[in-house]
């Protein structure tokens, strides 16, 4: 049966289908509809005093055995950063949704942006390797929320699901029953009956080893390999090749929707898993093109990543301040 759903509602519904049992969050535009939706579901639900509480409570509930999620926008996502590193360190599954709006600071609270790409990758302190998804339709909001839960269970890490004010507030018809998905069950034993110690300190078997550099090196390597291995099961992207074009456009989220008519004249690569970067796939498609243009709603955050991976000059078309214009994008493409 087809249903009209909003992007944020689809995220909430996807979470429920994935087995969500606990949600904690603090209201913020343009993410609030996720919590409104979940407030009406049969789960443990808490509107917390702030985002620090929201993310830590979700961590606690997840340790306690419940699939957990929190959602926010840029300012709240910044408040969660210390805890994201902690969740990586203690290896707890969790889904964190960031519906992006224009920053920095309160910026343009109702307007879409893709300004938190770097924050999603590098926002916490120290080294860590997050898995980040970014859908581009209401149906995909549903689907990739489920995949985010699966990836979190498999990697025992917090997964970042990005959206933006545009996508999250989009209404589209979705045939939920026709979507196929698998659900990963919990295998981490709930906190309470074992003798484990979950600590942010570098430790071995629950015992702190805070001056052991060799142990740290082994540990960080293991973390990296764990994420790389999990990521192999989540190679999400879309690639539309245009044999007549020597130019490859790269876009994701709402931007990829806006430029979709350009497939008549260009090849388009759309990463759905933004991080870890789909390096091999990117290299493979990049080779077929003379020019590469990243189109994104920021000052070049993902373009810099692509440039680093491909080690060649990448063009940028930026769409900032909350506005998206296909006409302007076309004009800039003509100049490139």
């Amino acid at each position, binding site marked *: 049966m087809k249903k009209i759903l909003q992007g944020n509602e689809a995220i909430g519904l996807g979470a429920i289908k994935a087995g969500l049992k606990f949600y*904690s969050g603090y209201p913020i535009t343009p993410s609030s509809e996720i919590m409104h939706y979940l407030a009406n579901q049969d789960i*443990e639900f808490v509107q917390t005093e702030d985002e620090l509480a929201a993310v830590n*409570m979700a*961590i*606690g*509930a997840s*340790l306690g*055995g419940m699939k957990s999620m929190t959602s926010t926008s840029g300012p709240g996502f910044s408040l969660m950063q210390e805890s994201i590193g902690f969740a990586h360190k203690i290896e707890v599954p969790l889904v964190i949704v960031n519906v992006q709006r224009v920053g920095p600071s309160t910026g343009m609270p109702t307007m879409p942006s893709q300004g938190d790409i770097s924050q999603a990758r590098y926002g916490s302190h120290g080294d860590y390797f997050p898995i980040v998804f970014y859908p581009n339709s209401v149906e995909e909001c549903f689907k990739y929320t489920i995949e985010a839960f699966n990836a979190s269970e498999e990697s025992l890490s917090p997964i970042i699901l990005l959206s933006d004010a545009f996508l999250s507030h989009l209404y589209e018809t979705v045939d939920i029953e026709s979507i196929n998905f698998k659900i990963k069950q919990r295998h981490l034993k709930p906190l309470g009956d074992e003798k484990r*110690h979950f600590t942010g300190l570098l430790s071995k078997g629950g*015992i702190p080893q805070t001056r052991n550099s060799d142990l740290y090196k082994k540990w960080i390597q293991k973390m990296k390999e764990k994420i790389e291995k999990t990521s192999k099961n989540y190679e999400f992207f879309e690639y539309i090749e245009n044999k007549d074009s020597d130019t490859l456009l790269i876009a994701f989220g709402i931007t990829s929707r806006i430029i979709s008519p350009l497939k008549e004249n260009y090849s388009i690569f759309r990463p759905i898993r933004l991080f870890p970067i789909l390096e091999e796939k990117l290299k493979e498609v990049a080779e077929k093109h003379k020019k590469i243009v990243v189109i994104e709603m920021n000052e070049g955050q993902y373009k810099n990543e692509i440039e680093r991976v491909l080690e060649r000059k990448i063009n940028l078309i930026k769409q900032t301040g909350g506005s998206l214009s296909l006409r302007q994008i076309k004009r800039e493409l003509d100049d490139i």
Partner: protein
Amino acid sequence: MTYKDYKRPGVEPIWCLGCGLHVVFTQLSNLFDELEMEPIVLSGIGCTGRTAGYFNLDTVHGLHGRIIPLAEGVKRARKDKEVIVVSGDGDLLSIGGNHLLHTSRRDINMTVICVNNSVYGLTGGQLSPTTPKGAKTKTTPGGSEIEPIDAQKILMSNKRYFYARTTPVHVKYMKEVIKQAIEWDGFAFVEIISLCLETIGKTMGLKKPSKMYNWLEENFRIVENKQVLDDFELGVVKNG
């Protein structure tokens, strides 16, 4: 099981010799043993924050200031388990103060034990929200000019509350009020006053453990049936 079985093997506390935290840890182990319970113990960051990791139970050592919401999440997922937080005054009343306000207001059934050593111990003795007015610390070389926070009044701002104050010298009483806190059906807060020997203890001339313990014994007294505890009074105030 004996109280000794509650200690995680292979790890020794980082605490200074004679620190009140040793007493708190031992007496908690005794109490768990007596009550035949295996709670989930959680701590934030600080000297006190190391407590959780010394229990041979499922334990969590969270972020500085964020252990109360984490523990609330655990409790909501494991309503069948006792959840006990042990952390410092800086952790619970300064950086984590907002969470104390709200988890206590939500009246989550858990016990929070705050070991109040009057300073930030782990980081070397800076001003904490509980530092007495006039006290010299690393960051108040001329003496603190502000009144300390009163945790009791924070708890009392709720309709239902349980607040107890004790010291590690009043061993039997400490155990008794922690037991009451665990049995309390709702959010219970126990403040254990125990000066940091190396920092504020030193400046107050109480660096020797015996001196600090004598000072606690001489200055604090147990009172009963009071609505509100005055400074230097130990007791339980509750409503529910």
